[in-house]
């Protein structure tokens, strides 16, 4: 082991020689690589959709894909509007709604460049005006739009319309609130739901010329082939085109252009919710927050570097290095073709904050040696000899901590892990390779050295003085320090048992953000924003025309709505349509609002429904009546309430629907939709946590043991590194911060970073012990040599993490606080607990030794 250390050390020592003698080659190589990376930056993609969190073969995702394959996209913009005159049925309100509906539906006729309009993604727009309506008047059946062109004119007509609308089971809380103050406009889109094979048919087909058609002709033969693929087979699951984040942004922008028109905004106030507004908001926000985080961290770094070195070059070079590291990471991500989530912000931060640490260590060493009267070249060599290995080791441990997240089966976390780790390594490589060349061009000491005798004296003074106050505490009061840390750790461990795993994208938005208000409004007055889909695959063509099956579906809906009145707002399925149609066939007789018991009667009822309203039929059941969907609208549920609901659904299905297996042996019932996806994610988060940090901890401990070359000290070293983990969970539990995809990042990041301090401290300690064998003296020396850098890097990181407090996402704010607190805990533990432990352990070993060398 010692051998490897020596060899590594020699290798790093050699770097300044090598890069200097190949000065131009190095610069050109760097520039070429940077140009290559810059070219990749343009390919950078963002994707924060829920589906992007899952692996391809994940069952919940497969069920969701199947759902989209059969029923089309489920991404809607639900615009809730408030009537300024208090009545969404007033002529003014209805006129405005119809105007918006027409503009959205007929955008092609209204815009100059319809081909490029974001509204091409609209598949349908449904409002109270064009809601499908089946009316029966004695022996007449009328299937029509609910209002259509005939807007009400008189007060009485308005009231009549309101009463009629209230009677439609699926209208209230979807198209209007029961007090008529709010209305709802549904924009259906094909975001993330366009099968890739269908792409060739969509797109530019507006102005077909004769020349276009023969091309199309080849695709669609006059005779279709016989069945070659089965929509239910495993083979047939179309890949869906991924919607780019900027599409959401431009889509929502175009919608606001319409909504902001005075003819609409004078009468209505709008509150859009749904995935597109959420994505658009997150994207917009992420961009501005990324800028803010970069700027904040850069300023912080510049400030710290200035305080530390008081030299322009000492600020400029490190900042340039981390900036280039960032470009390289972005380029790597771009070239990889993989989409990133908003966790990219954390990568930015890590590359900047962790990357700068290497530069701090090397620069402070360099200045230290220059102050020791070494020449520029000698100082560079000396610092590489002394600090490079430690920088390398800390970069490796940090990367390992990050890479441990590869084990979590959540795609964004895996990508985050790989790219953040590569960023840390880039920063290390660029620092080590470029810094000597940069210092050759311009170094922080050349002028000052001539002017001042000891420029470092006054500078380091206050930090050193501060640190010196603590340097003896560890070994003077181990009997106090160790119990205090133990008690604190116990409190935190108890606190950590209260950690709740919960994820709720909306809940995570900070209060007061318009989007969050909109969601709250929809939950309060309308149908809620949560969504759960139950897919019933009978395995038989026309299985859904069986009255027993439809009855079972109907009972499930009744059960959910009566058992969870506070969670489930609406449910809808083919059973509802069968009941409505049967009632209509009996001239609106309420007693006939039932599912016909006779199979043929049901078949003919459904035939009537399908003829009258093929669009609604397609939304509810597959063409062959084999697969149906039960849609459940719920309030925006966190994962805890969601789980309760899901468990109820599952056990109900087990009890009441599974018996149908006797008649339908191939019956399968699966749940999908946003809620199950969210719950699956939670499932991963809770148990993957243990595994990922367990492995990281093991690997890092092994590295510690190898680096220190001493099992005893290695084991001691692990203890202060457990504390930040306990702190993260304890604080989460005590302050009720949920464990979610954001706060999940804390531990792997902190494990890797916290151990850096320990490595620095113990490397010095070991050298001192080898040199003097004096325990207390070694602790004091280590404190003085490594303490300053430890405190500084920790402060940079802790304050850096606090920049995330400004995020509009509570998850990131919690992430920032937790990381900062954990890092500071790690530093305190390294400066107080570690010496105390070292003292106790080492003293026991060499109990004969008593001499105490007092400092100064």
């Amino acid at each position, binding site marked *: 082991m010692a051998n490897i250390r020596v060899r590594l050390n020699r290798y790093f020592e050699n770097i300044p020689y090598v890069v200097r003698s190949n000065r131009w080659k190095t610069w050109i190589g760097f520039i070429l690589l940077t140009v290559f990376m810059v070219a990749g930056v343009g390919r950078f993609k963002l994707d924060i959709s829920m589906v992007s969190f899952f692996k391809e073969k994940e069952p919940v995702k497969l069920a969701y894909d199947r759902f989209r394959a059969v029923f089309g996209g489920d991404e809607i913009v639900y615009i809730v509007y408030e009537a300024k005159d208090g009545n969404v049925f007033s002529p003014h309100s209805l006129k405005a709604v119809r105007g918006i509906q027409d503009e959205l*539906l*007929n955008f*092609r*006729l209204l815009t100059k460049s*319809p081909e490029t309009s974001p509204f091409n993604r609209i598949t349908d727009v449904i409002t109270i005006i064009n809601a*499908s309506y089946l009316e*029966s008047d004695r*022996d*007449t*059946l*009328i*299937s*029509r*739009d609910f209002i*259509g*062109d005939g807007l009400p004119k008189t007060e009485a007509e308005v009231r009549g319309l309101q009463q009629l609308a209230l009677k439609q089971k699926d209208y209230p809380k979807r198209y209007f609130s029961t007090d008529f103050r709010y209305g709802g406009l549904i924009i259906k889109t094909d975001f993330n739901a366009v099968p890739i*094979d*269908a792409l060739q*048919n969509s797109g530019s*087909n*507006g*102005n*077909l*010329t*004769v020349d276009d*058609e*023969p091309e*199309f002709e080849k695709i*669609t*033969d006059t*005779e*279709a*082939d*016989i*069945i*070659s*693929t*089965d*929509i239910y087979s495993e083979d*047939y699951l179309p890949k869906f085109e991924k919607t780019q984040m900027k599409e959401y942004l431009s889509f929502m922008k175009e919608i606001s252009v319409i909504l902001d028109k005075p003819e609409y905004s004078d009468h209505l106030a709008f509150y859009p919710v749904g995935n597109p507004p959420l994505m658009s908001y997150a994207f917009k926000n992420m961009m501005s927050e990324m800028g803010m985080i970069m700027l904040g961290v850069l300023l912080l770094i510049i400030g710290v570097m200035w305080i530390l070195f008081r030299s322009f070059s000492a600020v400029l070079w490190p900042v340039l290095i981390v900036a280039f590291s960032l470009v390289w990471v972005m380029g790597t991500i771009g070239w990889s073709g993989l989409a990133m989530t908003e966790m990219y912000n954390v990568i930015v931060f890590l590359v900047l904050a962790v990357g700068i640490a290497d530069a701090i260590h090397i620069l402070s060493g360099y200045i230290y040696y220059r102050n020791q009267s070494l020449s520029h070249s000698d100082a560079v060599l000396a610092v590489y000899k002394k600090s490079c290995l430690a920088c390398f080791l800390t970069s490796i441990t940090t990367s390992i901590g990050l890479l441990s997240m590869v084990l979590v089966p959540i795609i964004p976390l895996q990508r985050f892990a790989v790219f953040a780790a590569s960023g840390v390594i880039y920063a290390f490589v660029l620092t080590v390779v470029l810094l000597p060349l940069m210092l050759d061009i311009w170094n922080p000491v050349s002028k000052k050295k001539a002017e001042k005798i000891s420029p470092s004296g006054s500078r380091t003074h206050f930090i050193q003085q501060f640190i010196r106050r603590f340097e003896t505490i560890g070994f003077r009061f181990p009997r106090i320090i160790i119990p205090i840390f133990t008690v604190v750790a116990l409190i935190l461990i108890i606190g950590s048992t209260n950690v709740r795993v919960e994820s709720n994208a909306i809940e995570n938005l900070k209060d007061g953000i318009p989007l969050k208000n909109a969601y709250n409004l929809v939950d309060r007055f309308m149908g809620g924003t949560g969504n759960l889909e139950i897919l019933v695959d009978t395995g038989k063509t*026309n299985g859904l025309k069986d009255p027993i099956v439809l009855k079972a579906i109907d009972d499930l809906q009744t059960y959910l709505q009566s058992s969870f009145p506070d969670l489930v707002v609406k449910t809808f399925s083919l059973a509802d349509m069968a009941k409505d149609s049967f009632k209509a*066939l009996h001239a609106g007789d309420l007693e006939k609002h039932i599912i016909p018991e006779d*199979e*043929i*009667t*049901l*078949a*003919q*009822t459904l*035939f*009537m429904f*399908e*003829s*009258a*309203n*093929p669009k609604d*039929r397609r939304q509810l059941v*597959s*063409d*062959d009546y084999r697969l149906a969907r039960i849609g459940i609208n719920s309030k925006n549920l966190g994962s805890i309430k969601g789980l309760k609901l899901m468990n109820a659904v599952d056990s109900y299905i087990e009890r009441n629907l599974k018996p149908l297996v006797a008649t339908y042996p191939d019956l399968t019932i699966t749940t999908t939709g946003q809620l199950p996806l969210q719950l699956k994610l939670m499932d991963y988060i809770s148990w993957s946590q243990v595994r990922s940090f367990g492995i990281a901890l093991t690997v890092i401990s092994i590295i510690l043991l190898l680096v220190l070359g001493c099992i005893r000290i290695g084991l001691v070293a692990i203890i202060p590194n457990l504390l930040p983990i306990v702190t993260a969970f304890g604080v989460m539990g005590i302050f009720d911060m949920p464990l979610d995809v954001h706060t999940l990042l804390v531990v792997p990041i902190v494990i890797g970073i916290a151990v850096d301090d320990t490595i620095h401290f113990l490397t010095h300690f070991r050298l001192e012990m080898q040199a003097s064998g004096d325990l207390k003296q070694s602790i004091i020396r280590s404190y003085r040599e490594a303490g300053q850098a430890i405190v500084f890097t920790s402060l940079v990181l802790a304050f850096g993490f606090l920049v995330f407090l400004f995020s509009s996402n509570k998850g990131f704010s919690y992430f920032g606080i937790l990381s900062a607190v954990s890092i500071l805990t790690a530093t305190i533990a390294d400066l107080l607990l570690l010496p105390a432990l070292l003292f106790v352990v080492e003293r026991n070993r060499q109990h004969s030794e008593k001499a105490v060398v007092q400092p100064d």
Partner: protein
Amino acid sequence: MKAFTTASLSTLLIMTTSLSFAQPPREIMKKVNERKDGTTQFSKIELSTCRYTVANRKIKCIEKSRVKIMESVRKDFGPAEQDSKSVITILEPAGERGIGFLQFDWDDPDRETDQWMYFSALGKVKRIISGNEDEPKTGSFFGTEITYEDIEARHLDDYTYKLIGREVYQERDCWVIQSTPTPERLKKSNYSKSINWIDKERYLTLKSILFNQQGRRLKRITNSEIKKINEIWVMRNMLVNNLETKRLTTFRLLSTAFDFKVDDQFFTQRTLTDSVFREQNLKQYRLSLGSR
């Protein structure tokens, strides 16, 4: 003739021969609309619909086609045979057997189509109205991708026509004519325009592409298996490809006969409700198929 009837169904399928020389597109379409289609017609029809995907530039059904078989009887009325009445009854599938339609189409543009539907399992006749006044008709024909508008006869004056090309299609010389509804017509139509491939020699529409209200290509209708029966051109296979819903309906004329005697009493609600009466008449009409 207007609105939805079997007669109109046939108008898409039956066309007469005519001379072909340079003429304005409106004249061409006039000839297409006014081709001979017989005074009465009996047909046995199979409609099958499937959901499809496009793979390797070919359409493939991804589920079992839903097949419906029905019989239809049509008779034209009026001095110029401009109005028509028809009865359609479903034979298959079993659950829908006996469901019947009675429909009156009127040439008078102000008169709405009259449509009744009979539900055999309930023993009820219902008058059917689809869509508000002055708005496009909603609903589908027998749950297929064919909508009522697709099968109604078009009034020549409701559209303006433009010859946009000449092309060989299905090995026939064709005119390619774009027809655009007048603003008045547009209000009631699901389509903002159509492009039609017209067989120069036989005045048959071999292919139509229909564009939705937003100007997007919505449906593609192709006709094939053309045969002359009783001096009337019959296209026995029609494919309606809904490009939006990715569904394909195949309309097959299993057998058809023209110009046999049909009692006017057949076109009453009694035919729907009284299966004995209906069967008696149908038995006779079926005999005429022998001449096919």
